């Protein structure tokens, strides 16, 4: 799941630059699940905006909508009337949703209300922790299901660095050393062969460090079908 963090109100208000009619847009997807951008949080942001405006003596009109997802056009399209009635849209969706909104409603300022932070899992009460970086070349099969790319501060692929300390990462005592976990997991499985195998450097070109990535499922993409013979089915590719 994509995890995001609310931006400070001040920044949101600064970006709004005094616009009077604001549409606050929650998202029913990931950000609802991580308690950052659901309908409730959208309501609370709207409440903050109204109250802050009142304090400043410049009332605003704030409406709230929360589509199922902001990362799909069909859901976004249903917001047309509300978007048009507003001077600006403040979106609590991840960067994906904000961009799509901005693309669909090109002339409307669509402002982010959150910082999109990572892909992660619920790891404790009210806590989410990063687990995957979308590197495009998943190695979990060999690392006992612990991702060294996301969970090792240095994304090392050949084992722990010298900073590993009593199972924790050199960066912080609060973070487990990914390679310690991998070692323990593989050891428990009785197979350290991956640990022993000398790995070639990762191909960062497949990762988010590369260019924008696209996934095409040929079975539902007419254009791709014509190229189907090339066997590019379901492949991630770069444009």
């Amino acid at each position, binding site marked *: 799941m994509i995890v995001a963090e609310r931006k400070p*109100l001040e920044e949101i208000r600064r970006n709004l630059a005094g616009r009077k009619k604001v549409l606050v847009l929650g998202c029913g*997807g990931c950000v609802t*699940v991580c*308690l950052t951008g*659901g309908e*409730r949080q959208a309501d609370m942001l709207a*409440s903050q905006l109204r*109250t802050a405006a009142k*304090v*400043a003596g410049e009332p605003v009109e704030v409406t709230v909508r929360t589509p199922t997802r902001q990362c799909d056009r069909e859901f976004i399209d249903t917001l047309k009337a509300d978007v048009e009635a507003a001077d600006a849209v403040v979106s609590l969706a991840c960067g994906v949703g904000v961009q799509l909104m901005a693309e669909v409603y090109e002339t409307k300022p669509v402002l982010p209300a959150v910082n999109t932070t990572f892909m992660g899992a619920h790891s404790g009460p009210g806590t989410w922790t990063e687990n995957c970086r979308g590197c495009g070349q998943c190695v979990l099969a060999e690392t006992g299901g612990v991702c060294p790319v996301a969970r090792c501060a240095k994304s090392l692929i050949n084992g722990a660095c010298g900073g590993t300390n009593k199972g924790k990462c050199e960066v912080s005592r609060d973070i487990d050393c990914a390679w310690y976990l991998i070692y323990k997991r593989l050891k428990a499985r009785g197979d350290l062969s991956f640990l022993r195998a000398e790995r070639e450097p990762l191909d960062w070109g497949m990762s988010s460090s590369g260019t924008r990535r696209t996934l095409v499922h040929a079975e539902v993409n007419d254009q791709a079908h014509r190229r189907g013979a090339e066997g590019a089915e379901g492949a991630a590719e770069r444009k």
Partner: protein
Amino acid sequence: MPGRQLTSEEYARLAGSDALIETEWAPCRAACPVHADVRAYLDLIARGRFREALDVIREVLPFPGACGRICHHPCEQECRRNDVDQPAAIRDLKRFVAERDYPEGQKFEKPLQERDKVAVVGAGPSGLTAALDLARLGYRPTVFDRGEAGGGLLRTAVPAYRLPRKVLAADVDAIVAQGVELRLNVEVGGAFQLDDLRSQGFKAVVIAVGLSKSRGLPIPGADAAGVELALPFLAAADSAGPGLAGKSVVVIGGGNVAVDVARTAVRLGAGRVQMACLENEKEQPAWSWERHEAAEEGVATLHRLGPKQVLVRDGRVAGAEFKAVTEVFDGNGRFNPKYDENRLTTLDCDVVVFAIGQEADLALVKGTDVKADERGRLVFDRSTSRTSAADVFACGEVVTGPGSAVEAVASGHRAARAVHQFLSGLPIDLGESLPPKIDKLAPATAQRLVKAARAEMPAVPAAERKANFGQFELGLSEAAAMKEARRCMSCASGPFVLTDKCAACLTCRRVCPFEIPEVKEIADISSALCQGCGICAAECPANAIVMAGYGPDAVRKSVDAALASLDPKGLRLVIFTCGHHAPAARWGGSDPARPAVSAKEVFLPSMSRLSAADIMYAFEAGAGGVIVLECESGTCRYPTVELRLRKRYEQARQLLIEAGVAPERLALHVGAADNQEAAFAAIALMAERVTRRAQGWAPRGQAAKPQTAEEKSK
């Protein structure tokens, strides 16, 4: 039972109506013969809204005073608290609201009565109920009774130490006040015949004559002086004085009537009272609490004794002889006693009272088109409440057989409906489809519930009470009643999940103190397991959980109302507090000690319902300050609320400060909800702090930011 789910659209259609809260019933309500909304009136009592609670009861039960004392309370038997500690004291709470004096009085409005005249024969609970229902529907009912007052057996048989006559009289008066005419000292079937009613223009007749004859036994000696029957014995008890002084009394029978007879005999001065019953201790039909109280008063119960003969000396009772009972019920569970004629027991005594059952006196229908069967029972169609005559209906024990007052009331409701349908020219259909009731508590859930001891009914000690007919149960104090009402867990008031909003985020599961929500494709919250605290509803990020009885905008509406009631020019404080907490409900009123600050309480069913967004809303709506009063630690009926509330308050506080609200405009006081002084102090403190730094909120541009900094540096 699966959880309750709705789409947002369905919810929008139903919100505000009773449909949601009526979807499923708590077991108490299902068990109540008249289906009184127990949860609703207990909740009102807990909030100190006694008069409203009484109104809820009166809707379906015209005898709150009487039933508040003598009801056999099947609701309590079914109460889900049985699995936690003890059932809620529902009957005692009913009595509490019924016997209270209300400043607004007990005014009743006569409904507009322009419909047909209906005659009811018998002013017992069933007849009066049928009449009242008909009056409320606009008919003109007249109740005929041969007695000198209304109330039926409750007046003539139920002993005054359990049901003071004036309590019953008040119930009857209230019924009369609502448009029921009562014609006393009229025996129908004597000089005045059933057909006379028809000729006098009564378009329908309801026979509600009860079971007025006590049964005796045709055993040798049964006609001797000193042999009595239960009903005449009880009826005479009021006037009999200490007629049994020093006498030894044997009561034959093991039911509730027999116990009443025995305890009445004690009060009439009997030296020794013994009950002889067929059944063993387990089989004995009298309620256990009655038996216990009788024993306390010195009544001895002898089991497995079948009456053989009354021993007579000089024409007077000298004793009673019994044969041993080997079996009371046969293999099919049918009453079919077997005796051992060789094992005999003799009890010396001066008086024998038969309390072995009652039967109907149907003299009034003799020679009319209202037929009785060969066993002397009215021909009666249960599905229509009708007798063999099209315009004659019946209700109460005359048709149901012996039971309880509230069952007679239920039967009266049915008869009234039947009459109404008949007189409206409709086919009679008494079929009722009741909402399903929720299951028993799961043991795992019961274990997590906060235990709370049941209020004990203060009672006069046995030694003292056995000397007179004074009411021996003294009633609950206001504080005890409110505390007791808070023990109700508001079963079945739990949430609906809005299917289109739920994001399956698991928050509900994670915050529920009972781990009740199951999240599959979406959340599934079992209404049987749910305790209705509403913690999940206040945390759900998708606003996908709505509480059946307390919608998502309920708090906001109350905030609006609170603010609207305050002078908009001054500083307006909104105080969130638990309406379920006794003293909190009281300090809401006008108290001379209350600070002269424009402040208004918003009472919640539990602080568990107050979300961070609700707190924020108060400012948005124009509150100058918000005080959250948390109950004293450990007093909430739900676990974890203290912690949740503090977290929500903290979240709201951060967000509000971020929005420029000066920090002194927000306060949380722990333990103040039940402490009037502390609450008043909280109001005064906030007013003072806000006034002292009267910048920041109302005047334009005076942002609270600098204050925040100042606050920090302080």
